């Protein structure tokens, strides 16, 4: 009787558990080009998707991508909805308290301000994505912070005049500034924040962390990581 009861969801879900192998579920945001985004066909694309697939191949893991909103990306890792976060997430001491990180696969990158005019006052209203390094930085800088759930909206806020400037990752901003035909521009100084970008992994998952660390090291050593970085972020990128 008990067993029948517990079998119902299993039957419903197609005996999914029968072949439990080494499938790793990779959580990403899908809204943060060039790191990760959804292409025209509705599939995930971007630097981290290529990187993640390569890392999985090197670690001999089967990987499955999962899209998740940024706000809840850490809680859902912790509660086991997926096993890694690979979403342009900077390694910070604060996050490290809740989850673990692999070694970084990108060196610390500058964050920058983008505004609609040159003479904007950077102590005014600055937009940033919720729960990011940049939001934390603005909150402490004395400017007025307005937060948005998606990176998209932080840019719109500037175009729409909601915010005086947006403060975000330089690599995310660069293609947007380029495409704006001069409507948007970099202003102020760049600031380097965080300890580089790494994969988030549950604190208890030490084995998985080791596997990925090893894979990242191997990509660093044979230069394939550098090649990938340059391909996606241009020659100016800091390489290993």
């Amino acid at each position: 009787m008990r067993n029948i009861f517990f079998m119902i969801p299993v039957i419903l879900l197609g005996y999914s558990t029968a072949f439990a192998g080494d499938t790793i579920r990779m959580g990403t945001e899908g809204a943060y080009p060039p790191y990760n985004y959804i292409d025209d066909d509705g599939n995930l694309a971007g630097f981290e998707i290529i990187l993640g697939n390569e890392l999985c191949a090197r670690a001999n893991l089967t990987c499955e991508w999962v899209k998740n909103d940024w706000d809840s990306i850490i809680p859902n890792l912790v509660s086991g909805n997926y096993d890694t976060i690979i979403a342009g997430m900077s390694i910070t001491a604060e996050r490290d308290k809740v989850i673990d990180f692999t070694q970084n696969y990108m060196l610390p990158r500058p964050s920058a301000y983008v505004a609609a005019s040159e003479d904007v006052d950077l102590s005014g209203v600055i937009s940033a994505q919720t729960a990011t390094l940049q939001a934390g930085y603005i909150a402490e800088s004395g400017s007025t912070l307005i937060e948005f759930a998606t990176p998209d909206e932080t840019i719109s806020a500037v175009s729409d005049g909601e915010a005086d400037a947006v403060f975000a990752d330089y690599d995310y901003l660069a293609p947007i500034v380029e495409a704006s035909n001069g409507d948007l521009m970099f202003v102020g100084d760049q600031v380097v924040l965080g300890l580089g970008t790494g994969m988030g992994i549950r604190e208890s998952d030490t084995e998985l962390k080791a596997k990925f660390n090893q894979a990242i090291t191997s990509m660093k050593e044979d230069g394939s990581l550098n090649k990938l970085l340059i391909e996606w972020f241009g020659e100016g990128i800091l390489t290993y």
Partner: protein
Amino acid sequence: MIFDCSSPDQLDRLMWSLCYLSNGKHITFYYSILKVLVLLALAAPISIGLGLFLAILAKSDISPLKLLGKFIILIVRGIPDIAWFMFFVIALDQGLEWVRHITLCPDWTEPIRQGADFLVCEKAKLPGNSSSETIHEIYGFILAIVTFSIIFGAFAGNIFYGALEAVPKDQIETAEAYGLNPRQIFWRISFKQMWIYALPGLSNLWMILIKATPLLFLLGIEDIVYWARELGGAKTPRFTEYPHGDWRLWYFLFLLIFYLTLTKLSEKVLDKLTRKLTYGMGFSGENFLQRQ
């Protein structure tokens, strides 16, 4: 694709729009609209079934069952929906996994909770890690339907309970006078007459259910709101064949029209149903609705 969309930047406006609206990303958007309709189509009958069950429990002569029925209705209605959406799904998911964990992996010695982490053995995971993302999405969607059904089932239960109470006492007394036993009275008289008293409440609940569907995003499901925001947001040419400015206004206008149509259609159908049900029952539909 049906059209030749290989180089969108060279297409004329109409073809461009057709190609744009039929690209893979938009198909997922249409698919999310379908999700809303499927949710409605499944959650409504399940809620009604659950509501009937709860109302029958609450009307039972056996006092523990009666209390149980009333208690469930009260609890679910007393807790704000938002709380249900935020916590219930996680609790349900983890509860299922926990139960499977103790049955499927009895040898597991490590604690399930390690700090903030919730860890069950590989076999106990729902769905399993190796199942495809589609299975995971279906599982999430089933959880969403369950959540909606429980919330709306309790509300429906309350409506049915009230409707059963609203069946005139003399109709029941007459049945008693003619020797019908309590069972027969319940099923042949109260239960059948109850529908007409429940209908206004149920119509209302259906409208609320329609308007609650955008809350799917709270359950981590990529719903129409997610895709409207994603598709509407400005796109730079580097990452898409179809760059455009901020079109979110138009996507949300579309959603407004979608919901308005759904409401209007429902209104028409429910009106017809009311008229049919109230036929000969002594209240013309409109008068009746106003009496409520």
